[in-house]
């Protein structure tokens, strides 16, 4: 009878642990036009929103980074210091622009809330560094950074688990 190698079982456990986390992600994700802007460069952050009929998103920029503008209607945006609130009304995409400082790095963090769905959570952090140069931690936000690497790690871990499981099974 064919046995079931322990390492294969372990990998399958890894799959069950991480794949759901990757697939059932947060309803809001962020993409940056660049994670390494130049000195004073204006770059864009695009928020993709899925399934929030009425809710809100609050973004927090690292110290020195300045909110410039957004394509979102004015009456649905509020800026206070390093934080920007966007009101969500069945929106699927919100784009805003940010001006980088002369130097500095940090995380853009965010939170979302679905008022009708009565749920809330954090948006995975996006790391930015002027010219790719890391500086001492100086995040301007008050919110803890969300585990940015989680979805990517989950995908990598799942792929690795699949490979190892397949390799283990052929032995």
């Amino acid at each position, binding site marked *: 009878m064919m046995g079931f190698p322990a390492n294969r079982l372990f990998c399958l456990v890894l799959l069950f642990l991480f794949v759901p986390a990757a697939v059932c992600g947060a309803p809001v994700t962020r993409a940056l036009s660049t994670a390494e802007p130049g000195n004073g460069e204006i770059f864009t952050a695009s928020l993709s929103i899925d399934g929030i*009929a*009425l*809710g*809100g998103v*609050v973004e927090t920029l690292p110290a020195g980074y300045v909110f410039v503008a957004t394509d979102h209607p004015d*009456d*649905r*945006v*509020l800026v*206070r*210091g390093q*934080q920007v*609130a966007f*009101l969500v009304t069945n929106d699927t995409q919100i784009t805003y622009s940010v001006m980088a400082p002369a130097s500095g790095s940090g995380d853009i963090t965010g*939170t979302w*809330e679905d*008022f*009708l769905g*009565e749920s809330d959570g954090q948006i995975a952090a996006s790391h930015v560094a002027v010219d790719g140069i890391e500086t001492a931690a100086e995040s301007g936000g*008050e*919110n803890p950074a969300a585990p940015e690497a989680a979805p990517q790690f989950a995908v990598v871990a799942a792929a690795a688990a699949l490979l190892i499981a397949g390799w283990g099974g052929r032995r």
Partner: protein
Amino acid sequence: MNRWYLLALLLLLAVPASAAESIPGDADADGTLTRAEYASAALAYLDTACMGGTGDLDRDDIRDAAWVYARWDGKPREVTDSTGRTVTLYRPLRRVVTFSGESLETLRSLGFDMDRVVAVDKYSHEKEAFFPECRDKANVGSIWSPDMEKVLSVRPDTVILYATISTAACDDIQKRLEASSPGIRVLRFDCFKPATYAGEIRTIASIIDETERGEEFASFYGSTMDQIQDGTAGIPDDEKTRVYFEYWFDYTTVAASAGYNEKTELAGGKNPFAVGTTEYPAVDPEAIIVADPQVVVKLAGQGLAAGGYAGHDPEALAAIRSALLERPGWSRISAVEDGRVHVIHSDILGGAQHFIGTAYLAKWFYPDRFSDLDPHAVHQRYLTEFQGIDFDLASRGTFVYP
């Protein structure tokens, strides 16, 4: 004295949760939450919650505002309960206390978030098999012995009472709530009467904004009741099945004013003892034999504890039936001679599930007319599809015998 201090404290605590006289975010207080007002309120909330602002709206406020804006078109909702009283709702139901198991069951049929039910009556609290989610909820007693301190301690925004039964007790609870906490909304429904249940389903569905689900459930309920009504339509009075319906207690029947008689008649039965004003009159044993019922139905339940949702015990119901068959002189009764003596549990005849029990009665009274009616299947679909509970009738509960 300490008790009065406690009650005073509870009243103070109850006020914030029950302040439901306006739509949150309705800045000009004109009774309509406009798009601009909602947007302003939502941004103010985000500012307060995440950005160090100092607004007044909390999370429940903005969620309620979003509900009213999205689902009620920004306006309060007016509903008329089963006492004919119109109640204006400025917010959705968020913290509900039910003194009526039937209303609680109907809320669950309609997909209401049961986490929003914060306290229930003692009988629902005890029904662990049917209301497993209520085991850990507060118990506010019964309408005859309400624990008002407990009611106020759970800070309800809505309390549900009966509409047309035990009216004195329910009126008293309502008056006490209105006097102490006027912001608490009192809604009154029966949810057990065939004549009004379909309408109540739709009204409650409208309150909780589950109108589609309400139509679906009302249609399911109505299809069974319509099938019974259609199947018994046109039967001449002198050809109707003679039925002796016995209440929990021996030689106690149901008269015209009793709900069980209404269901017997809906199923096409003719009750020879449906006279007098007493709801559950005692009957002369000899009179039963003289009446010669074609069908005998015996009720099990609270006063004759056996079966129901609490236990899978067909033997207990069989024993009840055997005892009937052995009664002096009963061997001469047509129902006994023809094997048409049945036991039914009040769980499926007395409350919101009366349509299931009535379907069994119809099938027993007119097996040929209702050959395609399957009360067991109706019951299972109700539990699975509408109640959403994992309850397999093949292995749990006993409701009829045979």
